[in-house]
Every structure is written in structure tokens, then in C-alpha cells.
């Protein structure tokens, strides 16, 4: 059964390429007006999943509904196209076209009045309307691709690795735009292998590994469930935890470094540790506090590290 109130509903989606199963019976549902993040390393099946939702990939099995329409049916897909906006991974635009012309052509595709000035301003390309694609950086081209996805004011936005190769400026612009869209009631699905991006934007994160979903929750829930304990570490000559500090959690010692793993609020633990070190007259050489992050949760869930993720 599919949930028609959701913007997107995917049930047991499977996609095989010959003997390779890229997506293996994935199910998820995206409520309207939310941002849904598919997080995983390259090759995990995120792009394949997204492509099936927009009608580029033909599923081997399973059911997909986007705005109640089935993208595998030509008639539904024809109706769906004008209601979704897509930023594909590694979008290539005609090299000799300029920004204004591309926006005008895409406006014609959707039968709308072109708004080149407004769209360029929204993605930080103001003043660059006459710039040719071949003279733009990869990040600028990505931002133009975002503008092309937004210009016809779609209800659902699919962004495939939208900030890959973008500089900090581009990333900030894209994030702000995605949040603004969510706040106006649009639904956004994005794939990313940047943990920071998934944590910052997603209302719900789906961790994808080898074609299956291995965890799905809000970033805060994932951290609470899988991120492990918060930690306070201290290196101080003459310090050792007293009975009151022992109660805060589990202490371990490696070399000169004492480490407290705590389920409580690490800021309070830190204050208590510093107070006791001062009272004991211990000289603090280093002091650190670590909140569990989505990265910790990701590593715990997948057994993969961020470095693997970034360079995969």
C-alpha cells in the first residue's frame, strides 16, 4: 500500500543492472513540506533511487508514487514533469550558451515567463547573466542548474549531490535556498555524501549502504541512538577523578590522558572536571569536549569512516 498523503512514497524499490543489484527493496516516505536526505557513499544506490523517482531509471521491482503519480507510467510521468524540479549530478550545460539564454530556454520548456534576473539573484549569479557556461566554475554551473530546477516553481525538488564541487559560498546559498523552499511548503529530496549537509538540512535522513536503507530518522534521533556517548578528555599533571566525578560516567586513561564517556550533558561534566582539577592544583595541559555528531552515528551505523566516504 502506498501513502497518498506523502509527497513521495517508495515501496520495495529494486533496481538491478545485470547481476548487480544497485537498489535492493528500498522503502521510504517523504511527507510534504519536508527535506529528506539520502546519505551514503558514492555507489550506495542514492542516485539510482532518485533517478527512478524522476522517471530516468526504470525500476526492476517495487512501487513509486510522486505526488500520487507513478513515474514508470508514461502518462503519469508527462504530468509529473512540470511539477518536479531536478538538479542532476554532474549536470552539463551547453558550453556556448549564456546564463540568460539557458534560463529562457528552460522557461520555454515549462511554458512560463522567463525570470532570468530574479533566478540569477536567487542563486548568487546576479550580474552574470551574459556569462557563457564555458567561462563559469563548476560551482557556478551547479548553482545555475539549481536555478533551472527552481524557475518553474515545482512542488517537489530532487537534488542529486547538489553541492559536490561547490565552494563555501555556493554551499551557503544552496542551503539557504533549500531551507527557504521547505519553509514555503515545498518538498525536497537530496542525496549527499557530505554528512554536514545532511545534518544541517534534512528533517529526516536515510542512511543508504549497498543498495539498502540501514537507518532512517531525524539527524538528532540518529545521533542520540547511534552517536554514542559524549566525551570529556583532560591532560593535567596531578589530576585523577574523585568519587563525584566517577558518578558522571565511565573513566578511562590512555597515557597521560583521562577520558570521560558520559551520557549526560558534557558541558556540565566539563565544568565539574575543571573545578576538581583546579581544586587539586593540577596544571591543565589540554582539555577537550566532544558532542556525538551525525558522523559518529554514521560510522557506528555503516562501519565506514568519513575519509572513506569523501574519497570513495
Amino acid at each position, binding site marked *: 500500500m502506498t501513502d497518498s498523503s506523502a509527497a513521495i512514497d517508495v515501496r520495495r524499490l529494486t533496481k538491478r543492472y545485470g547481476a548487480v543489484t544497485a537498489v535492493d527493496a528500498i522503502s521510504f516516505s517523504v511527507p510534504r513540506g519536508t527535506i529528506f536526505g539520502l546519505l551514503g557513499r558514492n555507489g550506495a544506490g542514492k542516485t539510482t533511487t532518485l533517478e527512478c523517482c524522476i522517471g*530516468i531509471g526504470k525500476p526492476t521491482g517495487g512501487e513509486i508514487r510522486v505526488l500520487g503519480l507513478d513515474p514508470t507510467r508514461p502518462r503519469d510521468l508527462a504530468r509529473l514533469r512540470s511539477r518536479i524540479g531536478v538538479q542532476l549530478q554532474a*549536470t*552539463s550545460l*551547453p558550453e*556556448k*550558451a549564456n546564463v540568460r539564454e539557458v534560463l529562457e530556454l528552460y522557461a*520555454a*520548456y515549462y*511554458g512560463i515567463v522567463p525570470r532570468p534576473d530574479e533566478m540569477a539573484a536567487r542563486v548568487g549569479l546576479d550580474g552574470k547573466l551574459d556569462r557563457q557556461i564555458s567561462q563559469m566554475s563548476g560551482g557556478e554551473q551547479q548553482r545555475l542548474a539549481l536555478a533551472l530546477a527552481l524557475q518553474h516553481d515545482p512542488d517537489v525538488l530532487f537534488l542529486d549531490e547538489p553541492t559536490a564541487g561547490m565552494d563555501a559560498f555556493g554551499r551557503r546559498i544552496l542551503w539557504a535556498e533549500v531551507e527557504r523552499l521547505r519553509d514555503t511548503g515545498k518538498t525536497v529530496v537530496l542525496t549527499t555524501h557530505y554528512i554536514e549537509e545532511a545534518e544541517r538540512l534534512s528533517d529526516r535522513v536515510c542512511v543508504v549502504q549497498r543498495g539498502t536503507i540501514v537507518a532512517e530518522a531525524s539527524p538528532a534521533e540518529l545521533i542520540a541512538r547511534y552517536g554514542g556517548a559524549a566525551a570529556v578528555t583532560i591532560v593535567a599533571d596531578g589530576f585523577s577523578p574523585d568519587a563525584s566525578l566517577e558518578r558522571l560516567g565511565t573513566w578511562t586513561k590512555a597515557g597521560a590522558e583521562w577520558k570521560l564517556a558520559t551520557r549526560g550533558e558534557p558541558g556540565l561534566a566539563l565544568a565539574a572536571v575543571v573545578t576538581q582539577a583546579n581544586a587539586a592544583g593540577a596544571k591543565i595541559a589540554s582539555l577537550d569536549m566532544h558532542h556525538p555528531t551525525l558522523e559518529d552515528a554514521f560510522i557506528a551505523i555503516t562501519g565506514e569512516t568519513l575519509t572513506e566516504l569523501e574519497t570513495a
Partner: protein
Amino acid sequence: MTLLRMFLVQTKSHFVWYFRRDGEMMFWTLAMPVFFLVLFSFAFSDGSNTGSSRFLVPGIIGAQVLSSGFWGVGVMLATFREKNLLRRIYITPMPPWVFFASLVVYRMALLGAQAVLLVAVGAFVFHVRIIGNPLEILAILVLGTATFVSLGTIIGALARTTESANNVASILTVPLAFLSDAYVPIDRFPHVVASALRLLPSTQFIDTFRDVAVGGASLGAYGVWIGALVVWTIAGTAISARTFRWV
């Protein structure tokens, strides 16, 4: 209205992006055919110049129709796919036929410019006169373009990469230009060979076009060949439509 604007903006975009801003493309499209006309007119001169030019003006226009279909449409489609442009277009509401119509009209506009240029040079330099019925000339040119665009689209549909599309287009275009009565009269080949070459759609198209344009023949006299070209076009379109991949 929406579809018309879509078609017009797309056609104009093809023209601006792939022709007007591409010097190499302009050179190959406009200067090379004229250069060939002048070169071969003198090389094959029978003393009067007009004789060989009279053969070459329609021959080169015909060869351009062939390469327009194989390169201009076939290889261009493969390039579009390789650069992920086709998949980006596929997810827009533009109906596929609007996209193909814009591509065909764009190529026809370029062919028109090439034809006008070649006819002008032929007339002023080599005194070649176009004496055929303009409507019949136009009709056979449009039919020929349709034939070779539909066959070229098969290349664009089946080629995995731009490179393989390029190779297939070269293998077809270059020999056909010399075996289809375009640059060299096939009458110079042994009779059996010439008869065999007249079974090629390229030969049938170029001979019909030449006889109508500079021979003043009536299109009605070429019913069988025209029928054959129509069949090729239908077959090419059907195969293209079945095999075309957007991604």
C-alpha cells in the same frame, strides 16, 4: 502557443550555441563546401568549367544533406547523450517530437544557407544555371534531408559514445560521397558497378536532385526512387523511435 514557443526557442538555441558561436562549425558548414566546389571544378575541368561545376553544385549540396543527417544529427545526438544533455532535457515537459523537429529545422536552415551559397558561387564563377521547378527542387531536398536525418538518428540512437558515432558517420559519409554520384560521376565505374551504386538511397537522392535542379527534369519521372526514399525514411524513423535512448 506553448509548444510553438518551445520549438522556436529551442531551434534558435541550437543555431546560436552550435553554429553562430562556433567558428569551426561555421567554417566547415559554409567555407568547406565552396572550397570543394572550386577545387574539384578546376581539378575535373573539361575545358569549359561549366560541365564539371554543373555536376558538382548539386552533388556537393547532396553530399551536405548526407553529412547533415549522419554528422549533424546522428553524431550531435550521441554527443548530447554523452554530455548528459539528453537526460536533462528528458526530465523537462518538452515532448520528444518538439526536440527532434527543432533539430531537423535547424539542420534544414543550415542546408538552405549552404545551398544558396553553392548555387551563387556556381552561378557567378562557373555559370551554372538552376533551371528546375523551385518547388520540386525544394521537395526533393526536404525528402532527402528527412531520409538522411532519420538514418542518422539511428546512429545517434545506437552509438554508445560520441567517438563510436563519429566513426560510424565517417565510415558512411566519406565513401558515400564518392560512390553516390556526388563528387565523382559513377558513370566512370564499370556498368555493373554503376548500376549497383544506383541502388543506394544516397545515389537515388543525389541523381534525382541533380536532374531536377540543373537538368530541368520533372520529379514525376523519378517516382520509383522517390518511393524508395520514402520507404527508407519511414524505416529509419521507425528504427530510431524504437531504439532511441535518452540516458
